[in-house]
């Protein structure tokens, strides 16, 4: 089915099993809490050897030679691989082909240049640390995107202009003209990247940790120079992704090359330091905002021009202005993007690429506009919600933006906020409130699933979708159970294997709606098959608890099947509704912080997120996703920052002791309100993505609250103590 028309039937609402939307426990929960879910490193593949990647210790230049002999002579060392097929950096999300390859030309410090394989992990690590290399370093290293001699590009397709922003700025009653900066971020998923490669003849099985298997299979095959049919990837459980496992990564290709050469299975795991250096970072951003408003605070002009960075030859550029295109009105608009080519770890997707940093800075600028215009920040947002997409003549699909702002304000007690900063003090702590809007584009992707209704009345769902902690196992089980009228424990959902039908993969928040729709469509087909047996219309068929009820008569499903199993394949594809309406998810963040009047330390005391993202498939897993996004936001606001040595770009804080993700005590007991809605344009299950919405704008609510508490206007993230101290008495 191609999503060309809104699906107003809302068939899930007609079903009787009562599973959809419920806060059900994760179906795989008992495996995860008992340590028996199998992650990449844990497959019992016989006779494994272990590989450790060797990093380039310089930022730019050529490898001249590697002294393999000395390392090969070490106890237990089996091979030193410096094949030209090794990956320079991971593939970008949905690349579907090999990323830049080659181990001789170095463009960033930390680039993998060789793999040492040994009988034991300890032996391989020692070998990797001992490998002697000769290289020719090129001193012309580019590290700072804002340096006067930085090489930058302005891709035409990433520039947008409408009306005359400069004139709007001149004629405006109130303006904001400010630059905001966000540093690089690391996904820091808890499971480091790992791949175990095993060949049987010319067939490769790779146990790995990846988010998008159908693309990863093609990327791996292309990297190795073999056919995709020769590759099977298995990722049953993925220990967090957040973008870092979207594309095939250096460990997979290195493991496959080594396993082929040694004729035995090879396991390659990245160290935490290598995850920081050789996977993906979110680009740093410089964002210049110009906001123009009339005397009532209504936007007349909006300019958002950003500078980001990446390695040479990478097409990805952090799409900073992605939601700026549609979140607020304003007739005169300019949204631009410039990319600097640097010798720093590859930039790629980190949770909510674009909006995570773009909406955040926009919401800081809106806070400044509210103050300039003397309007409450909440009121300013409400005033500027556009009726239609402000740049294209299309309507929004479902959008509970206004309701999220209003309901959030009421639940949070926003009316208690003191408009003038620095008015509330409790002992040594200055207390303040801030808010921000949340928005994220919504995307549907092609996805395929097979559903089997077995003769015993149980159901099997099969698709190569991944569950990276998002809840795929659970929500796909719920959809099949709901549509076919069987309880959760009668549905088995099999994921994470390229031998299964190809799914959308997990990323861009599209996983649940895309793969869920494919399961829904397969189940609709199965219902039709049952209807033919019962001589009825699908609308007249009720399936519940293993019974098929039609015309007030109940038939046992097993008897109805009569020993036969039924199968159906569901395929969803994006269609015209991706173009003829503006699809996005919306929400609002509210934060209360305490800023220490002496030290400048900020503690988040309360935080509320209100989100609308179409149909909520599982209230429990959806809420957890929102918590996760909001807490990423707390990290972005207060502590997270990749620090690069200005001489060679190496990441100075390349571990979890120095790159500070939030810990438990950094996070208060959060509140989340989910506004259930039906988006008929988004998917036949009326669901949209929710995995990234929680981070979009969250950090701005915290930083705006810091301003309200202390008068410290921080425009360079994160809001560390040194940036707040100058504002304190």
């Amino acid at each position, binding site marked *: 089915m191609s999503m060309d028309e809104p699906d107003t039937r809302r068939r899930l609402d007609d079903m009787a099993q009562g599973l959809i939307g419920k806060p059900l426990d994760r179906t795989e929960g008992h495996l995860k809490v008992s340590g028996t879910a199998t992650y990449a490193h844990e497959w019992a593949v016989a006779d494994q050897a272990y590989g450790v990647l060797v990093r380039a210790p310089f930022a730019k230049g050529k490898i001249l030679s590697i002294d393999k002999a000395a390392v090969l002579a070490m106890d237990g060392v089996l091979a030193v691989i410096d094949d030209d097929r090794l990956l320079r950096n991971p593939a970008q999300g949905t690349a579907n082909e090999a990323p830049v390859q080659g181990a001789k030309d170095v463009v960033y410090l930390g680039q993998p240049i060789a793999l040492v394989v040994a009988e034991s992990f300890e032996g391989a690590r020692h070998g990797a640390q001992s490998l002697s290399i000769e290289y020719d370093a090129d001193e012309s290293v580019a590290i700072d995107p804002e340096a006067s001699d930085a090489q930058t590009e302005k891709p035409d397709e990433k520039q947008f202009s409408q009306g005359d922003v400069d004139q709007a700025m001149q004629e405006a009653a109130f303006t904001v003209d400010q630059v905001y900066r966000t540093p690089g971020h690391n996904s820091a998923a808890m499971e480091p990247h790992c791949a175990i490669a095993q060949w049987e003849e010319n067939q490769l099985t790779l146990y790995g940790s990846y988010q998008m298997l159908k693309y990863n299979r093609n990327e791996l095959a292309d990297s190795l120079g073999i056919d995709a049919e020769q590759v099977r990837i298995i990722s049953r459980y993925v220990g967090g992704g957040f973008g870092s496992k979207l594309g095939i990564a250096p460990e997979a290709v290195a493991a496959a090359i080594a396993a082929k050469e040694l004729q035995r299975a090879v396991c390659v795991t990245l160290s935490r330091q290598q995850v920081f250096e050789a996977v993906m970072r979110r680009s740093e951003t410089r964002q210049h905002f110009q906001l123009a408003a009339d005397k009532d605070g209504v936007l007349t002009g909006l300019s958002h021009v950003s500078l980001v960075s990446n390695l040479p030859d990478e097409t990805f550029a952090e799409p900073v202005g992605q939601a700026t295109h549609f979140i607020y009105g304003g007739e005169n608009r300019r949204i631009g993007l410039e990319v600097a080519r640097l010798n720093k770890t590859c930039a790629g997707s980190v949770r909510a690429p674009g909006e995570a940093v773009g909406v955040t800075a926009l919401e800081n600028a809106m806070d400044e506009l509210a103050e300039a215009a003397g309007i409450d920040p909440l009121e300013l947002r409400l005033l500027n919600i556009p009726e239609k997409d402000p740049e294209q003549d299309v309507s929004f699909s479902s959008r509970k933006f206004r309701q999220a702002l209003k309901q959030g304000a009421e639940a949070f007690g926003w009316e208690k906020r003191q408009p003038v900063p620095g008015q509330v003090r409790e002992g040594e702590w200055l207390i303040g409130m801030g808010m921000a809007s949340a928005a994220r584009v919504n995307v549907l992707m092609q996805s395929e699933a097979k559903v089997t209704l077995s003769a015993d009345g149980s159901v099997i769902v099969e698709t190569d979708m991944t569950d990276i*902690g998002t809840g795929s196992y659970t929500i796909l089980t719920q959809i099949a159970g709901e549509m076919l009228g069987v309880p959760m424990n009668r549905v088995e959902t099999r994921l994470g294997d390229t031998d299964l039908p190809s799914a959308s993969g997990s990323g861009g928040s599209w996983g649940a709606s895309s793969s869920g729709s494919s399961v829904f469509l397969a189940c609709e087909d199965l219902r039709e098959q049952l209807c033919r047996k019962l001589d009825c219309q699908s609308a007249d068929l009720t399936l519940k608890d293993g019974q098929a009820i039609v015309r007030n008569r109940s038939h046992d499903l097993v008897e109805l099947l009569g020993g036969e199993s039924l199968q159906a394949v569901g395929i969803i594809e994006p269609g015209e509704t991706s173009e003829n309406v503006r699809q996005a998810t919306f929400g609002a963040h509210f934060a209360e912080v305490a800023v220490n009047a002496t030290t400048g330390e900020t503690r988040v005391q309360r935080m509320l997120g209100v989100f609308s993202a179409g149909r909520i498939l599982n209230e429990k897993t959806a809420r957890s996703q929102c918590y996760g996004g909001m807490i990423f936001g707390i990290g972005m606001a207060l502590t997270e920052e990749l620090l690069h040595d200005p001489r060679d770009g190496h990441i100075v804080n390349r571990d979890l002791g120095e790159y500070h993700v939030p810990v438990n005590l950094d996070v208060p007991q959060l509140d989340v309100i989910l506004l259930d809605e039906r988006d008929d344009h988004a998917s036949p299950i009326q669901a949209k993505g929710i995995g990234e919405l929680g981070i979009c704008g969250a950090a701005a609510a915290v930083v705006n609250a810091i301003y309200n508490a202390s008068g410290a206007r921080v425009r360079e993230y994160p809001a560390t103590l040194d940036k707040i101290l100058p504002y304190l008495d």
Partner: protein
Amino acid sequence: MQTLNLQVNGETHELSVDVRTTLLDALRQHLHLNGTKKGCDHGQCGACTVLVNGKRINSCLTLAVMHDGDEITTIEGLGGSDTLSPMQKAFVKHDGFQCGYCTPGQICSATAMLDEIKEGWPSYVSVSLVGEPELTSDEIAERMSGNLCRCSAYPNIVDAIIEVGDKS
């Protein structure tokens, strides 16, 4: 190589290991107890938390050969997938995890942490340095701050621990 005896989850295992092998790698690579996770290998994330003689430690920061004769409890020793401990059940009920990778470490840590509170160990947020600390969300959050969770299930982890702590 060196031989040693590890008492893991009530069973004695005689092992012969490279002396560079951490307790974490001995559990995973030699005993195939994969419940204990490697997140950073530097004692920074807590995913490898196990109990040694009843106390929680980061198993990546200690060598296997230092634990000859020690009693070690891993997540597998707290409860299997069909014999979950009260803490494991509470984590499922409160959704105290998403990807599940830090979860065994969180649960081992939480289990030992409740004993520390019962024994009256104070923490950075304790109001008093003497007596049994109150089981507040702050008290739990502080004591669980050595276990990172990037999915950020922290509020749910605290809820799960409060439920178990209140019952005991």
